[in-house]
């Protein structure tokens, strides 16, 4: 009635630094400036953002690149419109004193990974490592107690948790080994994109500006983190700041330096061929159909990255 367009975003996880840019945009009123009424719906361990968006329960979703490809293979009509993480942070942790100094050293150890995570499959099938896997649901207690385990995780999250529990770890990302799909991909349904291109454009413009401010302005970050703790009271300030600090390495890198959220067809093609080689994708997928970067504004990453406030983590 008042001319605002309502947009619901479903996150890939509970609200945390990984979704900080969106909360910052909300916090700063950037969405309102574009006449968008944005609601952010938190995700959870098995919340399937792709189906929620495809079925019209939400307009926008956040997830990793592989899930967009898998969705299309299953006939779920969604399309990526931005990729916040240029480099994929997912990888594995090992105890510093475990003697494992490379992926090769991790052969025949048990890997604690999220079931269905394509990174571990890449290491097995493409890199030819043999190892057993064990389900990971979020607690690294087992890893901390057992030096021989290889723990999948994020340097922004698991590594910090381990450190706080008094365990020094080494981190190896799958990206280093050659598997580097985008992450924190913003997607929408083909139908919504076709019918509301302007809303998508506006949403991206506000969101990418939010990300720029969140990364480059400690004041905005402070306010946003406080908001994050409000909507997610179990989140702690130090964890947020730690992740805030670390994640910038993955966002403001490569094409992301000049344009936050940038996507290239090379990267999407690589992903499709890698997933096809892994046997995860069995149907032929046209990489160009997976993404549409024509609505993405050019918001560069901040030239200068401030330090996190003293004692924030």
């Amino acid at each position, binding site marked *: 009635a008042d001319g605002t367009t309502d947009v619901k975003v479903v996150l890939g996880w*509970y609200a945390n630094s990984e979704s900080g840019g969106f909360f910052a945009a909300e916090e700063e009123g950037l969405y309102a400036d574009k006449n968008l009424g944005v*609601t*952010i*719906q*938190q*995700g*959870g*361990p*098995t*919340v*399937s953002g792709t*189906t*929620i968006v495809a*079925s019209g*329960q939400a307009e926008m979703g956040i997830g990793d690149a592989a899930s967009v490809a898998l969705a299309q293979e299953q006939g779920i009509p969604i399309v990526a419109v931005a990729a916040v993480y240029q480099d994929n942070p997912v990888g594995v942790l090992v105890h510093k004193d475990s003697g494992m100094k490379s992926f090769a050293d991790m052969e025949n150890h048990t890997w604690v990974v999220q079931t269905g995570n394509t990174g571990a499959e890449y290491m097995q099938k493409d890199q030819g490592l043999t190892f057993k896997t064990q389900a990971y*649901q*979020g*607690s*690294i*207690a087992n890893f*901390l*107690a057992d030096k021989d385990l290889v723990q999948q995780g994020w340097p922004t*999250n698991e590594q910090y*948790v381990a450190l*706080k*529990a*008094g365990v020094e770890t080494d981190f190896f990302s799958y990206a280093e080994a050659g598997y580097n799909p985008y992450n924190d991909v913003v997607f929408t349904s083909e139908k919504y994109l076709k019918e509301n291109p302007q809303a998508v454009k506006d949403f991206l413009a506000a969101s990418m500006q939010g990300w720029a401010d969140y990364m480059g302005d400690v004041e905005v970050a402070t306010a946003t983190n406080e908001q994050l703790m409000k909507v*997610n*009271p*179990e*989140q*702690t300030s130090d*964890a947020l700041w730690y992740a805030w600090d670390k994640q910038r390495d993955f966002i403001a890198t490569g094409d992301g330096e000049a344009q936050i959220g940038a996507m290239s067809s090379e990267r999407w093609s690589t992903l499709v061929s890698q997933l096809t080689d892994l046997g995860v994708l069995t149907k032929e997928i046209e990489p160009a159909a997976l993404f549409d970067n024509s609505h993405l504004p050019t918001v560069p990453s901040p030239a200068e990255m401030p330090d996190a406030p003293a004692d924030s983590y």
Partner: protein
Amino acid sequence: MTDLSTHQPTETAPVKAAPPAPSPGPSRLVAARRFVVPPVVAAVLGLAIWQLIIEIFALPVYLLPGPADVWAALTTDAGPILAAAKVTMQEALLGFGLAALSGFAAALVMARWNIAERGLYPYLVLLQTVPIVAIAPLFVVWFGAGITTNALVAAMIAVFPIAANTLQGLKSTDRNLVQLYRMAGAPERVQLFSLRVPAALPQILTGLRIASGASVIGAIVGEFVAGIGGGEGGLGYVITLNATQLRTPELFVAVLMASAVSLILFAIVATIEGQLLKRWHESALPTEE
């Protein structure tokens, strides 16, 4: 006429019986003592063993926090965790109510029509065994993330114990009583509600007891899977987040809160059970009269 001896009281002076005429029931105080002391003793024992295990195996806090750690977490975190417990409680109650209604209805239908039992029961079993976690994402799509979905998950887990126990109870009615109703020309419906249901109350209530815990589990599983839809998260959310951040004491607090929620539900059922059965059913009567 025969020789009649009138009644001769015994020589021995009548001794006052040890327990004098029993009062209509044990006093409230005694009852409270009998029902409060044993669990409290068990609790203290449990706490001691808990602390001991930690000392002996030198377990780090993130593996098994001690009672003191948990207490500290509880006192700092009380606000948000109570809010989360409230959400879970709502979902569990809703799910429990839903399960009670539908489980009871299913059992009635199965008791009433034999053919329904043979046709329906296997599917009820199936329903119970459907790994909710697998289809909960679909629920989210259908009903949205949040209370409705989580309550539905809770109901799905809780419905079978109620249906199975109720059915077993309904089928165990004394057959002479059933025939009494038949002879009086009572329709099967009346027979069900006026005879079979009251006779099955003990079993129905046991089903509800089991369901009271099951529905809380269901609500939490729903929360794990379905996340929080805009609204506030319940205990499942608190547990997941604390697990990923390895805040084990906080996680234990959430676990304890979950148990508290189901104890509340359970206590409600147990109270109703006591009220309904105490006048006539074996399992609720005092041991001796």
